[in-house]
């Protein structure tokens, strides 16, 4: 019996090159004659551009050109918004690559400088004189939607880009009117900086002879970048090649197509030489998309005995100065549809108002809409528990959807695929020793120590998604994936995929799926991605979709190849196809085990084509498009135990228990890695991360000196557990796990801290829960 490679925690094949610094990122690629682009960026959040004088800059050593939006003219179309949510009165204000007459956030591009050297480009950028007429700015989305707020786009009245409210408000009101208990809270989902380890970069090379443009860039979805760059430059899509080389993380921030990618493309076309731009960390914090930014007014209705009856919200979602590529879909489709969570809640209502502000554009950030939904749900469940005097675990237990194997319709309109929420819930409680903890908490309090516990049950929709649904909700693309499985004559495998992993370990995971299906040694399988000319079409890596969707395409392509191999093996061994047995990459004839053909031998014979069955084409290669019939819905329960130092307000995260169910785990080590990283990012939102702009729209958290990234010593060793509930509609039963940690952990830790502070009378603190805020809340509650 051999060990199955599916389920084996083999080491990530990506890591040696990443750890040793050998990986080749966009900025590592050197082209002769390259010009460096620096962008003159607005120091104001909101201002009219009075004049631009580039004469000094143009005369500086090494400077080739300085361009403004006037020079670009109609050479570049505005950047498109690609998620046009329906029935929401959506406005899509023009987003020019360089500001036209007006800047709308600090960092908005005003001019570009092209020089032979990056330093000289920066010197010249500093020498471009821009005269501004400063306008009042607004950052808070609720304020921006209010009376008298400065108007950011003339064609977006009241700064309201959309109002999405697809549920029955009257029905929701009736539930709330009749309920025993209604709890409410204003929840601030603060802006976050995605902070991928590699900042963004783009280099374009236009070949005037062939009229082809090659764009290397930090992209999670090179095929989408190709589509958008083609659209904004006017080049035919088959004349644009987008290459995402090694990409050092994205967390959603490398989904959008930004002005910078369009600008290097335009400049290279204009000048006929390669043009490169690499973002500094300071620029990254100013201009790369931010996440979250909701002001939520949330209510939950319940009965006196703890049955949750309904949830409703009004959400002001800050969009920033322009609508980024997928922005409208995040606080709507990916948010409101999650309002049932893992509970039997029969009534949901969400009114999500997308508001233009003078902050950086927001868009998908790890979890994208679903953390903001899970947080409000879990927060309100704890509030209900406190209001009716019931243990929050009991309230959850009472409301969890019972186990189901194949489809469960919820009030928010989704059909969950499979789940056993109570099993994960009880397992996590067992690992945490919930009852014991409550006793410890009591005795600690007697000593003046404040311990708290937070318990989150969650499910989420990922593995995006059925293309028909994508169309119905206004996503301007499909959400299928495709793959080509190509076996060489010597029996080595190339798996060409349209998705574009950038740190997730998918090269390893996907190879394991193929190895498991086809019997090739896993080390003989290469997973190739990130080049629109080399790989088949795909919609990219985000939304925890690469393993579920690309993985399904590869499993199905593998099965096609295996079917072909079986027929060919039977033919070569002069046996009946029904008598062929397959095990571990070898086809043998039933009853005569000596007679066998390995998959490699079959692959060779398919290439040689000396002796093919009637009607079989030569070669050993299959392609597969896979459009998922439904989303996948991973789930689980996370528990945090904290101690709050009442003297300083510091929070000590003492234990973190995560029980996640993502179906069968292909590589448990990689699953654990995804959960670790996700939990850390989510806990950081609860405890330390948060963008701060001042009243003029200046970014005060412009570096890691002020923007608090999580650090290893803030965390205990995570205690992970799993349950395994396969997805019924997926070829290998797997669900996504890239975002679950981020989705579950923020409310878990937040609720734990508020549980610890409950005896002191503290009921609410805006995130992040810095020691100063916690300490302040304790003082306020005492006074």
């Amino acid at each position, binding site marked *: 019996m051999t060990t199955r490679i599916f389920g084996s925690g083999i080491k990530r094949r990506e890591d040696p090159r990443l750890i040793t610094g050998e990986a080749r990122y966009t900025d590592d690629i050197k082209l002769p004659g390259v010009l460096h682009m620096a962008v003159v960026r607005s120091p104001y959040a909101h201002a009219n551009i009075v004049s631009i004088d580039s004469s000094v800059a143009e005369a500086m050593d090494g400077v080739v050109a300085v361009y403004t939006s006037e020079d670009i003219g109609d050479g570049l179309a505005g950047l498109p918004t690609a998620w046009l949510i329906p029935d929401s009165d959506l406005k899509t204000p023009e987003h020019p690559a360089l500001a036209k007459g007006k800047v709308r956030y600090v960092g908005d591009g005003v001019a570009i400088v092209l020089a032979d050297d*990056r*330093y000289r*480009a920066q*010197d010249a950028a500093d020498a471009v004189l821009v005269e501004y007429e400063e306008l009042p700015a607004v950052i808070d989305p609720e304020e921006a939607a209010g009376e008298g707020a400065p108007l950011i786009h003339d064609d977006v009245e009241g700064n309201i880009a959309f109002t999405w409210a697809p549920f029955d408000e009257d029905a929701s009101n009736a539930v709330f009117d009749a309920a025993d208990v209604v709890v409410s809270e204003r929840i601030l989902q603060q802006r976050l900086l995605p902070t991928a380890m590699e900042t963004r970069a783009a280099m374009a090379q236009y070949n005037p002879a062939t009229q082809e443009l090659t764009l290397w860039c930090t992209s999670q979805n090179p095929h989408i970048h190709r589509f958008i760059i083609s659209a904004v430059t006017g080049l035919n899509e088959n004349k644009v090649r987008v290459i995402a080389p090694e990409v050092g993380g994205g967390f959603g921030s490398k989904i959008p197509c930004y002005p910078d990618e369009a600008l290097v493309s335009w400049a290279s076309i204009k000048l006929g030489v390669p043009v490169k731009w690499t973002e500094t960390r300071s620029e990254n914090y100013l201009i790369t998309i931010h996440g979250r930014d909701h002001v939520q007014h949330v209510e939950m209705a319940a009965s006196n005995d703890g049955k949750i009856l309904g949830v409703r919200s009004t959400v002001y979602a800050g969009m920033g100065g322009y609508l980024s590529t997928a922005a409208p879909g995040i606080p709507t489709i990916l948010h409101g549809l999650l309002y049932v969570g893992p509970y039997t809640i029969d009534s949901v209502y969400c009114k999500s108002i997308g508001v233009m502000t003078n902050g950086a554009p927001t868009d998908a950030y790890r979890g994208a809409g679903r953390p903001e939904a899970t947080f409000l749900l879990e927060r309100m469940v704890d509030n209900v528990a406190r209001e009716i005097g019931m243990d929050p675990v009991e309230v959850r237990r009472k409301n969890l959807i019972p186990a189901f194997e194949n489809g469960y319709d919820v009030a928010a309109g989704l059909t969950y695929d499979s789940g056993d929420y109570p099993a994960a819930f009880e397992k996590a409680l067992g690992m945490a020793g919930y009852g014991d903890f409550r006793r410890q908490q009591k005795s600690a309090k007697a000593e003046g120590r404040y311990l708290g516990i937070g318990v989150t049950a969650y499910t989420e929709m990922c593995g995006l998604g059925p293309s028909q649904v994508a169309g119905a909700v206004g996503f301007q693309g499909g959400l299928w994936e495709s793959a080509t499985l190509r076996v060489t004559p010597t029996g080595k495998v190339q798996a060409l995929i349209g998705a574009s992993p950038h740190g997730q370990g998918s090269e390893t995971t996907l190879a394991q799926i193929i190895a498991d299906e086809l019997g090739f040694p896993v080390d003989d399988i290469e997973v190739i991605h990130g080049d629109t000319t080399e790989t088949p079409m795909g919609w990219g890596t985000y939304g925890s979709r690469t393993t579920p969707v690309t993985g399904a395409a590869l499993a199905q392509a593998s099965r096609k190849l295996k079917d072909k191999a079986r027929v060919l093996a039977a033919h070569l061994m002069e046996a009946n196809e029904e008598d062929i047995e397959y095990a571990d990459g070898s086809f043998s004839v039933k009853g005569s085990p000596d007679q066998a053909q390995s998959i490699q031998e079959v692959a060779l014979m398919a290439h040689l084509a000396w002796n093919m069955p009637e009607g079989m084409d030569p070669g050993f290669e299959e392609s597969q498009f896979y459009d998922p019939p439904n989303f996948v819905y991973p789930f689980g329960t996370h528990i945090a135990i904290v101690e709050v130092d009442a003297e*300083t307000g510091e929070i000590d995260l003492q234990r973190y228990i995560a029980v996640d169910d993502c179906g069968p785990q292909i590589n448990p080590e990689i699953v654990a890695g995804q959960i670790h990283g996700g939990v850390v990012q989510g806990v950081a939102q609860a405890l330390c991360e948060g963008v*701060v702009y001042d009243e003029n729209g200046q970014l005060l958290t412009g570096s890691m*000196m*002020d923007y*608090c990234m999580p650090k290893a010593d803030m965390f205990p060793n995570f205690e992970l557990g799993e349950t395994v509930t396969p997805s019924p509609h997926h070829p290998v039963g797997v669900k996504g796990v890239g975002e679950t940690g981020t989705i579950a952990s923020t409310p878990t830790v937040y609720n734990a801290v508020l549980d610890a502070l409950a005896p002191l009378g503290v009921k609410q603190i805006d995130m992040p829960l810095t020691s*100063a805020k916690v300490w302040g809340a304790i003082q306020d509650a005492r006074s």
Partner: protein
Amino acid sequence: MWPSKFDYVRAGSVDEALASAADGGKFLAGGHSLLPAMKLRLDAPEQLIDIGRIPELQSISANGGLTIGAAATHDAIATSADVQAMCGALASACGQVGDQGVRNFGTLGGNIAHADPASDPPTVLVAVGANVNIQGADGARSVGAEDFFLGLFETALDDGELITSVSVPDVSDHQSAYIKFPHPASRYAIVGVCVALKMDGAVCDHAHVAVGGATLRAVRCAGAEAALAGTTLDDAAVNAAAEAVKSDIAEDLIGDIAYPEAYRQQMAGVFLKRAIAAAQG
């Protein structure tokens, strides 16, 4: 990320460094404060005079007290047996600067010349009454640490002057500690407290107390010192000192977006208590 253009010279001796400084520019030792500022174009010196390899600036010598060369690294100071023996709080403070990589490059002279209010070593130097030894074109002078730090990033150094060393008294007969409440983002001090207690049996003969991080410069805290002197450091005395220290620093408080002045002031009291406990521990 992209500093402005500058010239670079490496000085082989203090005299060479001072001669180069006649043309303007800034001294470069470990570069861990200056270079980030230059990369952000917050500073743009036309010339950098590298003093990082001048042997006489790197030594740490013990002779009744400590003489620490300006270019001695934080790591060298933190791990020096002499420093640990004569001024344990300084070794501790230098060991809490940045991370190991920063401590391997960053120097004491560079640190105090930069005078970041949230830095660790200045608090100890002010507490124990160290002297900063300075060389200029017109000769040498020595300035007490308390008079050296004038304000935010502001020192008694004149243009063209170079710190050559820091003289630190031997306080091995004191119980000392430096305790820091690190800012979660930067790990600089939200508040840093140094105490050095001279005990006479169970009674505290005198105490040195200084606070940094919460203040625009390291502040010697006379009120807290008076509250501790002559007591047995019982709870009443320690609580009185924790109250007094808030007044001692009231004029010099600073805050940031996450940790405002009032919070830091309160925390100075909390961390003074913890520093006293650590010194006695």
